[in-house]
């Protein structure tokens, strides 16, 4: 497999799955809470236990989110003119023939997504922690409750898009989260600048 290129290391893979799984648990239990879904509650062994799982999954989520900073934040913070054009062109997803400028290791959309994830993730974690650990202060409680739910809605929509783009919309992408590598060609098309920088 000489024409493969490594896009994610083991740490990133593990951490991503940690985020993903905790997020999944949080969403499912969150839905259980939001809509009083008894079946969800029973799956978790009752609502009380679900609350415990939700809280600790939240901790895990927050931790993995913080760790992800080492992997992505540096890249995500640098925006170039090409990124702007990428964004204007909708990442080339708007038509079958969409053409976009060459991108680095993360394309502009991924950068944006990551920043949103990070921000909303921090808000949802912080507000969740507030509800959990500072109960009884009504003002904080109400603010946290509001922010928790706003960020939840944002994350829910963004992550759905993320999953789609990383699976169906871009066949071959998903393997990064298994092997860490992608075909060189695949990478050239999508992350030309990065491939170049890597010396291929």
């Amino acid at each position, binding site marked *: 497999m000489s024409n493969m290129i490594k896009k994610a290391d083991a740490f990133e893979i593990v951490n991503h799955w940690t985020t993903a799984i905790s997020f999944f648990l949080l969403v499912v239990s969150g839905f259980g809470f939001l809509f009083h879904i008894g079946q969800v509650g029973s799956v978790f062994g009752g609502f009380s236990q679900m609350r415990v799982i939700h809280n600790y999954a939240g901790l895990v989520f927050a931790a993995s989110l913080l760790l992800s900073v080492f992997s992505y934040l540096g890249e995500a913070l640098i925006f170039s003119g090409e990124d702007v054009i990428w964004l204007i062109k909708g990442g080339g997803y708007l038509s079958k*023939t969409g053409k976009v400028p060459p991108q680095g290791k993360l394309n502009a959309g991924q950068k944006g997504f990551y920043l949103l994830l990070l921000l909303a993730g921090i808000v949802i974690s912080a507000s969740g922690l507030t509800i959990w650990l500072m109960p009884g202060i009504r003002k904080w409680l109400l603010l946290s*409750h509001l922010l928790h739910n706003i960020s939840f809605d944002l994350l829910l*929509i963004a992550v*759905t898009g993320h999953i789609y783009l990383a699976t169906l919309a871009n066949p071959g992408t998903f393997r990064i989260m298994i092997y860490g590598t992608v075909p060189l060609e695949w990478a050239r098309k999508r992350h030309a600048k990065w491939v170049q920088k890597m010396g291929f």
Partner: protein
Amino acid sequence: MSRKALLISPELCIGCRGCQTACKSWNQLSAEKTQNKGTAENPPDLSPNVYNRIRYVEVPSAANPVRWLFVSQRCMHCGDAGCMKICPAPGALYRTKEGAVAFNKEKCIGCRLCIGGCPFNVPRYDAKDKIAKCTLCSDRISAGLAPACAKTCPSGAIRFGDRDAMIDLSKKTGYAKVYGEADLGGLGTLFAFRDAPAVYGMEEKPAIPESVIFWNRILRPLAYWGLGAAVAASLLHYVAVGPKRDEEVKKDE
């Protein structure tokens, strides 16, 4: 079954606090170690062991040293109950057939969100972090008895009956403005006030916090619809535009 309610008349209350003792005694709540802090009012706040209390309110008076009012504080059994609305655990707070807002400690998950939802700062939590508050004596009223506090009150300051009848009674005895007649879907704890609610230390227009309403109207459905829309959009894209295939990329070259 018609909705039941308490009618509380501070003008008739003599501050004897039989209601506090009766409530504790019926609900088997333990006593608190209190201190005299320069007021006869005690315990100082609602607590998991204090479902109701009399606030001794002193307001200035022209004719007398003070005007001394005795105002009962307890759950208002809101028709539109913020505590129930915000509560994430089904069955932890529930409405009885008499219209009371009761709780089930087994189902309470101890998240304390109901503090945020309640416009009257009523819910409290016991040592096991379970909700505790006035239940309108739902166990008594479902058996056809008056709530313990109403039964004990010597002066008629707490009366209990069909909600409509209580409103009538209040109006007939000259208290035209019944606190809680319409607010919050109608309260199950009505007050017959002679003056503005503020005089008695009560909110003029009690309301569920706007953020909770916003959450309930917008954010909550958005979780549902937002997820649906995102999935639908993805599918639509997949069908209409289709995935980025490497072959196509090749062709492009």
